[in-house]
């Protein structure tokens, strides 16, 4: 059972990671664009238990850290995503009002995305990563949030279906 879940989840994340790197990252979207991989990770965490969410955050973080487009040290994304995925799952787990309502999920994922980006910037600053200008940073964060608001509703049914497939949870959103 564990191997099946791990295999399906790993395959899904790997495919989304490749799609992000090979397709999404190559398109120049206005205001910075979005990350379907990050949205998948946060949605997956919101639909999972805190333990699973933390493990998923760890795996997704490792993949993001290994991405050629990442400038931070290995473990940077991992640390942030472990904490954020655990936090999302912790707040939403057991609260059917939160999980059963797509609007709540979308808003939570968008808010989480903003927190993740801000955390990445702050920790990056502490780790000595050179940041861009404030206006550019704000544009990227706000742009990402808007794009996430647009893209998450499109991805949500597919991610929920894949999550059901992996965990056989029969959850309906």
């Amino acid at each position, binding site marked *: 059972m564990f191997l099946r879940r791990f295999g399906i989840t790993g395959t899904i994340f790997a495919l989304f990671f*490749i799609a992000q790197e090979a397709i999404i990252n190559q398109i120049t979207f206005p205001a910075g664009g979005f990350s379907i991989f990050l949205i998948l990770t946060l949605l997956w965490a919101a639909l999972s238990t805190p333990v699973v969410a933390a493990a998923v955050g760890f795996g997704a973080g490792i993949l993001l850290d*290994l991405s*050629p487009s990442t400038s931070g040290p290995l473990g940077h994304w991992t*640390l942030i995503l*472990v904490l954020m995925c655990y936090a999302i799952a912790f707040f939403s787990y057991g609260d059917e009002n939160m999980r059963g309502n797509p609007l709540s999920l979308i808003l939570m994922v968008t808010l989480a995305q903003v927190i993740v980006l801000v955390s990445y910037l702050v920790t990056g600053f502490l780790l000595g990563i050179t940041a861009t200008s404030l206006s550019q940073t704000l544009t990227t964060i706000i742009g990402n949030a808007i794009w996430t608001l647009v893209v998450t509703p499109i991805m949500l049914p597919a991610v929920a279906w894949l999550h059901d497939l992996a965990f056989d949870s029969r959850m309906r959103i």
Partner: protein
Amino acid sequence: MRNGGENRGRLLLVILIVSSLFLITLDLRGVNVIDGLRSGTHTALSPFQRGGNVLLTPVKNFVNDITHLGRTRNQIEDLRKQNQKLREQLILRKNQDGEIEQLKSILDLAGTARFRIVSAKVIAQGSSLAFTRTITIDAGSGNGIKKNMTVIAGNGLVGVVKEVFANSALVMLATDPAFKVGVRIAGSQQIGILSGLGSSTANLQLLDNQTTIKVGDILLARGSINSQPFVPGVPVGRVTSVSNAAGAVTQSATVRYFANFGALGVVSVVVKAPKADPRDALAPVKPVPTPIPTVTVFVTPTPTPSASSN
């Protein structure tokens, strides 16, 4: 039981956080394994990225065009304006080049004849409704121009100053039907009167019935008393046809003016002529045809072996 699950969860969280911090520490310390992992991921992703790039190039271009639609329009508009400006500059430049060319030929002519001239731009053509052929130039009494002074262009006679104002002058063109000038044929020195016909040609009436003219003869202004209205020696035109009417007392001919009245940009007013008559010195030199070299081939027959044996 529930507490045990929560504890395990927290333990896992702590382990994951510690692992993350461990990875960060390793990377910041520059461990080679981490760099190897990154380069391995990059190598594995490269084919997907290349494939994605090939597939997405048309889409990227489309999205890029939409994103920069306003900017592209502005750029096109700017380039259009710039193009228009450059075209205007080019036209102005061509016009100036033409004027410079005309001025240069006038100076050549005036220099050869030792005329003192005042150059002026043609600022207006006379109205065709006035039934006269005139031009207005941007030089007047303030520039030393007086009535009845000769006006020349690079090729020859243009006309005579008819009216003078402070900053401009009205010039009667040689094409005006009322225009008459005394001329002589370069070389033979036969004299006649040339009358304008309202076009680029004029009518020549010779004064002596013993003389003859032929097509191609060059006419020069004969000159007036005190060089007004006409200075002597100015080229006027070339005979294009000769009329030998049976009952005519003297010969007449049709003459084409040297000056191009359709493209007058800059003209010069002769304000002082030299005392000595330049005679035929200003007559344009007839173009000498360039001889075409004849190629002659000499062929020496080679004796055939059979002929030599006989």
